[in-house]
């Protein structure tokens, strides 16, 4: 199968270019396996990967124009020639490796942890099964960045817009009955940028390899803001 990969080494290349390889594939070969094979042939080829089973979220790349995890994408099901590029909207360090500093800054900014105003009890904070169910579809995020990297609003304003991944996490804690930071969370997201750059484009839910829906989470945050306003 013909695979063309994005190559760019800022120390030696004036311009990025695409390099083509022919790789033997089976119906079970994942994109990551093909990339490993390419690295075997050309050790200077660089990409991130770790667990190889869609859990760590390291190998988010752009495959034939849409973001996904190399390790869980079967290459035989893709249209030939397969084009592999780094995730769009993030600074490229080398080949397929992008700088995700800003992405994690946005993540940190939503305070992805439980905020307690009451004294923390000696025992664990209990949840009913119903309260726990509210976190399904939220806690599973592996922070791969596929969603934010596919969001035009994030591309245009990565410094000001929190992006789908961070906003999904913001809702994950807003929806948690143990969290007492609702007001400060909503206040923090106020203004035209942090939350409201979302124009419901829905690329995020399209690409999420875990099947999560940041668009829906963002809708929930807006509804909660509305409720708190009136």
């Amino acid at each position: 199968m013909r695979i063309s990969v994005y190559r760019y080494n800022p120390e030696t290349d004036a311009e990025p270019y695409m390099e083509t390889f022919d790789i033997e594939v089976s119906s079970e070969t994942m994109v990551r396996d093909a990339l490993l094979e390419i690295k075997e042939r050309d050790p200077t080829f660089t990409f991130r990967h770790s667990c190889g089973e869609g859990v760590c979220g390291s190998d988010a790349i752009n495959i034939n124009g849409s973001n996904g995890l190399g390790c869980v994408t079967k290459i035989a099901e893709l249209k030939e020639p397969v084009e592999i590029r780094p995730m769009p909207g993030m600074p490229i360090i080398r080949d397929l490796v992008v700088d995700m500093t800003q992405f994690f800054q946005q993540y940190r900014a939503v305070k992805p942890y439980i905020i307690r105003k009451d004294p923390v009890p000696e025992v664990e904070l209990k949840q009913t099964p119903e309260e726990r169910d509210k976190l399904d579809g939220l806690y599973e995020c592996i922070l791969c960045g596929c969603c934010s990297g596919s969001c035009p609003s994030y591309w245009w304003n990565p410094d000001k817009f929190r992006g789908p991944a961070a906003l999904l996490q913001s809702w994950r804690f807003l929806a948690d009955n143990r969290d007492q930071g609702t007001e400060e969370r909503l206040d923090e997201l106020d203004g035209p940028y942090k939350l409201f750059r979302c124009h419901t484009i829905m690329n995020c839910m399209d690409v999420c390899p875990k099947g999560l829906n940041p668009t829906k989470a963002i809708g929930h945050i807006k509804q909660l803001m509305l409720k708190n306003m009136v």
Partner: protein
Amino acid sequence: MNGRGDGIRNWLIQRISAIYIALFTIYIGYFFLSTELINYQTWYGWVSQTINKILISLFFFTLLMHAWVGIRDVVMDYVHNITIRFILLTAIIGLLAAMAIWLILIVQGVR
């Protein structure tokens, strides 16, 4: 441009105006479909009714608000230079306000 509740307020304006615009489109569509003979007289007669004047004015008001939120969003997404953005937004406000005044004059003129 960072007032409290600014984000949710504009978002709300966009939704509410969209609903009104949709309802008004149905209403005016009903007039066109239910009126057998549409000519200047029947059209003028319809517009000159007080209730329709109010609804039409409200339509243009919400349309301009809707346009403002939408255009402002586009400018904020794509124009990052603050000076250029300020000039653009001011020009757009001016243009929309001029249209609003012009529309008031038109609707006023119908007796």
